[in-house]
């Protein structure tokens, strides 16, 4: 099974998770910029976080053979804080960076006028930068939020195939598919969606434009839910090729619209070797990675 997890917050995860991801076939991840549990209060907190996504986290992932990418945006919850909103001026320069494969997560949390404004502004930035968009749908009032999301996307003029609407479930998947956008599903241990309901949705709607992620973060979540969904698909009679489409080819096709995906193996990485300092290579020590 080869897997690109198109939505996972690795900053909040351990090196054990990276090892488990690699062992399970995850070769690439996309980490969307989002909130951190504790609210931010300044632009500096955002830029340090964005820099960390493009610097330290990419390095950390590479040590475990995983290609790390990011999506950059001001998230909807913090769009409501004027101290955070000033980060909008910094976002365009981040959208040029290597490994930034979309604008995201954008969308709605509480559906306020501030969220409207920030969402629309960032859709414009995506158009300007030639990037696709990852849209978060609200946890509360999800169906109405999804309708409003699709309206705003339509008004922006952005082609629907450049938009991935995430955290969907049985109630709003049809809306998103009918709009021509990509449908994303976050498979969680006990909320949002589970792998068996996911299999039922794939049986009903097919495997085209369907994307599965773990959305693992600092809350109760499981970075291997992509793998579990693949296993559940096989158990339900889907073919290996169907699994490959949902877990690899679909997310690759979506994010490849950025021209910024790197999927070749990490150079110098040897599968099955944990990162250790001072590994000998032709007489001199070379990097396998160490803390300092």
């Amino acid at each position, binding site marked *: 099974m080869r897997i690109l997890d198109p939505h996972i917050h690795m900053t909040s995860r351990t090196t054990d998770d990276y090892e488990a991801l690699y062992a399970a076939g995850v070769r690439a991840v996309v980490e969307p910029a989002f909130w951190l549990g504790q609210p931010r209060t300044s632009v500096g907190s955002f830029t340090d976080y964005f*820099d960390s996504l*493009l*610097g*330290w986290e*990419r*390095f950390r992932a590479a040590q475990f053979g995983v290609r790390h990418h990011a999506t950059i945006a001001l998230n909807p919850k913090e769009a409501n804080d004027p101290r955070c909103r000033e980060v909008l001026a910094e976002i365009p*320069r981040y959208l*040029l*960076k*290597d*490994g930034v494969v979309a604008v995201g997560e954008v969308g709605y949390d509480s559906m306020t006028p501030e969220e409207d404004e920030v969402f629309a502004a960032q859709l414009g930035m995506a158009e300007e930068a030639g990037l696709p968009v990852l849209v978060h749908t609200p946890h509360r009032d999800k169906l109405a939020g999804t309708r409003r999301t699709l309206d705003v996307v339509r008004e922006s003029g952005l082609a629907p195939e450049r938009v991935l609407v995430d955290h969907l479930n049985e109630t709003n998947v049809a809306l998103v598919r009918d709009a021509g956008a990509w449908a994303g599903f976050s498979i969680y241990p006990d909320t949002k969606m589970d792998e068996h309901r996911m299999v039922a949705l794939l049986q009903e709607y097919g495997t085209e434009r369907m994307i599965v992620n773990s959305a693992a973060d600092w809350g109760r979540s499981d970075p291997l839910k992509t793998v579990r969904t693949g296993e559940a698909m096989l158990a339900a009679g889907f073919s290996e090729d169907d699994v490959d489409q949902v877990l690899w080819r679909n997310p690759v096709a979506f994010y490849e619209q950025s*021209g*910024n995906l*790197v999927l070749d193996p990490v*150079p*110098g*990485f040897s599968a099955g*070797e*944990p990162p*250790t*300092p*001072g*590994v*000998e*290579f*032709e*007489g*001199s*020590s*070379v*990097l*396998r*990675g*160490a*803390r*300092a």
Partner: protein
Amino acid sequence: MNTVTTGIPAGTPGAVWLDEALAGVARDPDSVTRAFAFAARRVGRAPLRPDTDPGGVVHGTVDDAARAALVVALADAVGVGMGMGTCVGADADKDCADRLVLLYRQGDGAERRGVLRGFDALTERGDLGPVGEPTALVTAGLELAADALRANDPSLVAAAVGPFGARHLDQHTWRHAILKLVFQGVSLTAASDLDRRADDELGRMARDFAAERRAAGRSVPADLDRLTNTRLTNDQPTNDRLSSTKE
């Protein structure tokens, strides 16, 4: 003249892109920001010396070299080296220094390496003046090298101990940088001018480090030999991968 060797075969799309980007920086120094961000996507990320440095950590990567060439083009575009020792020269140095600090501060890990490798190229070209009379450019380079040497990413540490670091880092900072390379498992071939700058104090630090590793039952990196007068060997070879997983 841009003297950076990038290893990009002439006539390939990457070489054509880089030539255009260098000409673009000559016309408009501000264009370096975009060229810096796109370099790896256009010239690739291959290691410069894959035989001994498959990860491109020790000697850098093709995109590092392309970015170093862009730094040299930027220095030329703003007039660095043309009026050395004069007010015009000082203004050019300040302008270039400000631009390089911004490129570094707003850069991802690879872009930061590119700025550091650019300082190496300027050093080798003799653009930074004599040691002991730090220009604005040298001061900026030292500030960025200090930032890189605090990083946990070994490729940043390695990029801070090239020709610029060898020439301009103070002895204390330089010694700690060298020991950090050993600690991170990066070959000391990353360090320029190692034999000239190595001193008794670095030898002492290296011997203490070796003693600490032996006390922990761990192997002593072969590179430490270069820093100590006494030949160090692993009395009791151990397998690091089994005996330890973490520093």
